[in-house]
């Protein structure tokens, strides 16, 4: 509960301006808090009179807290491949491990995974824990969660990282709940606090309108998921050495209640562009269907999907499900990059509520620049390849 000391309160309103949730306001001559309060403590920090404090029951603390050491990454195997996010996690995992001067391990459940061990070590892992069995070829929530939970209980890592993927989003919250650990989803930044070695997890909230930095002071491990393409993989170093351990899988660990009846792979045209956070769209300015190869590349770099204006679809360069606009879909992604699109109102109505609009067009009078957050006036065939190059450089 937020406790307000009415004697100390001078009704200065600092708390009201510091509250991101509109939960505290000055009424008459004292601050009053309502049900929107999330106990984040921002007002407490900002009160010049120390009139506010957060009171709460004692927090639970883990019994064998000190015994937890090491960074662990949960890697994903599906249909014969390792998900690229696993290497990205090893990239950030290596940095965190070096900072903490601890080892970096990676857990990989799957059908046939032994061949990937060397690549994982080259990517930064000191220890590779393989859970290999035909029963693990298909992703089953209970099996993967059970294995990860067992490995965590045995090896006691202080930090566990996983991808915010379809697999990660099911398994990790289940495991976190099971072992009473704190979990922060979709982190965009992970750092170690100097003073106490605590993992600081930063993530967006309220659709990205706010950033929050989160810690787990009383529980171990500290768990975090990270979206693909947010972190950078390290440059693979084949000379690195590491340990490969095959996890013993007792029959109880392979007992599942989930039957996998079928598995279906989508093609690109079934992607729902309305569900994606980043869209790169191509228009008449591409001049030909080949231009979409460039669009796809940029989209891939940003982990986004491909969209198009009506002109591009009518010209047969890309199928209709990608069309944005009056006679296509309405989208509101975080980032919309319009390449070679004039921005006539029929297109604009389909995308103008995007958070950030980037326009790339060689015509400086194109209407798209009226609604763009950022505009580049130039030939997209020069701009986009350079943009892709710069984005790749940043990842390194």
């Amino acid at each position, binding site marked *: 509960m937020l406790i307000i000391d009415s004697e100390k309160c001078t009704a200065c309103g600092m708390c009201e301006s510091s509250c*991101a949730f*509109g939960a505290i306001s000055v009424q008459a001559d004292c601050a009053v808090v309502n*049900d929107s309060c999330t106990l984040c403590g921002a007002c407490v920090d900002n009160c010049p009179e120390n009139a506010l404090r957060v009171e709460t029951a004692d927090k639970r603390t883990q019994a064998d807290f000190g015994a937890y050491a090491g960074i662990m990454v949960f890697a994903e195997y*599906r249909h014969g491949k390792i998900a690229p996010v696993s290497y990205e996690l090893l990239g950030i995992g290596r940095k965190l491990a070096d900072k903490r001067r601890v080892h970096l391990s990676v857990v990989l459940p799957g059908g046939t995974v032994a061949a990937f061990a060397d690549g994982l070590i080259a990517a930064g892992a000191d220890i590779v824990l393989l859970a290999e069995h035909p029963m693990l070829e298909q992703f089953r929530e209970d099996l993967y969660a059970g294995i990860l939970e067992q490995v965590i209980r045995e090896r006691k890592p202080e930090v566990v990282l996983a991808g915010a993927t379809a697999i990660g989003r099911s398994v990790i919250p289940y*495991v976190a709940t099971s072992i009473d650990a704190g979990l922060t989803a979709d982190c965009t930044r992970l750092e170690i606090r100097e003073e106490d070695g605590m993992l600081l997890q930063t993530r*967006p909230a309220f659709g990205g309108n706010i950033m929050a930095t989160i810690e787990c002071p009383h529980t171990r491990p500290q768990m975090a998921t990270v979206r693909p393409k947010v972190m950078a993989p390290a440059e693979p170093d084949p000379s690195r050495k590491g340990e490969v351990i095959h996890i013993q899988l007792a029959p109880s660990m392979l007992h599942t209640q*989930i039957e996998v*009846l079928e*598995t279906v792979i989508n093609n690109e045209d079934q992607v729902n562009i309305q569900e994606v956070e980043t869209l790169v769209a191509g228009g008449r300015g591409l001049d030909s269907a080949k231009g979409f190869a460039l669009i796809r590349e940029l989209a891939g770099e940003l982990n986004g999907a491909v969209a198009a204006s009506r002109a591009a679809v009518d010209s047969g360069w890309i199928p209709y499900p990608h069309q944005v606009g009056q006679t296509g879909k309405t989208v509101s992604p975080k980032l919309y990059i319009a390449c070679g699109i004039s921005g006539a109102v029929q297109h604009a109505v389909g995308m103008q509520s995007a958070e950030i609009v980037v326009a790339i067009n060689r015509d400086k009078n194109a209407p798209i620049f009226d609604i763009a957050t950022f505009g580049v006036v130039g030939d997209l065939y020069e701009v986009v390849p350079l943009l892709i190059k710069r984005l790749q450089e940043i990842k390194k």
Partner: protein
Amino acid sequence: MKILVCIKQVPDAKDVRLDPKTNTLAREGVESIMNPYDRHALEEAVAIKEKQGGVVTVITMGPPQAEAVLREAIACGADEGVLISDRAFAGADTWATSYTLAQAVQTLGGFDLILCGKQAIDGDTAQVGPGLACRLRLPFAACIQKTRKVTAQAIEIERMMDDGFDVLRLPLPALMTVVKDINEPRVASLKGKMKAKKAVIQQLSAADIGADPQCIGLAGSPTQVVRVFSPEPRGDRKIFSGSVAEQVDQLVACLKAHL
């Protein structure tokens, strides 16, 4: 069949904007709505009830005003609503929330199927559904895009994956979280709205669900917010100039600040 749907009242995230002058969320005129993913979960539950027979119960953990979404759910076909509310729940993270919901589910008892929306549009974590499945020891699957078959013993569903989907069969009781592709929610009917008006909403406090004070609210939350800050302020629109290389560099710098 006894079906439970977990729903949440959230601010309409698309209307929540940052006031650039004060760096706070401008909440003026932002409506409170039923979390859109939960709306789809509710529709699926009602559709299953219409085919299999049974009762749909909706629960929510929230402040007193969250009762409004329970009534909205009844207007859209739920049979009864339960509000889990207590000052002690304030400040709960997903761990404490799933604990609280699990205690409530165990108090109410006997559900064959539990449905949740994939994630809430304010927190965006997608953690409560799987966490709840863990506490209730239920087989579960997340991000379900279609229910193929329901019998008294099992459910056959399509689980969305990053590259397509898998078809699963889970025994009941089970829990699933759903994505928007799963259905088109119906419009609340007049009869439903009348029923919702008259409905008596059961209310449960922390004591009613036997909650351990150390596991709920802020006290029960292993994650804690260290600080909250605004991302780089949006500022005015910028049309760059200069050579292609210069413009791209400026663009990349601006994008980095924003993403």
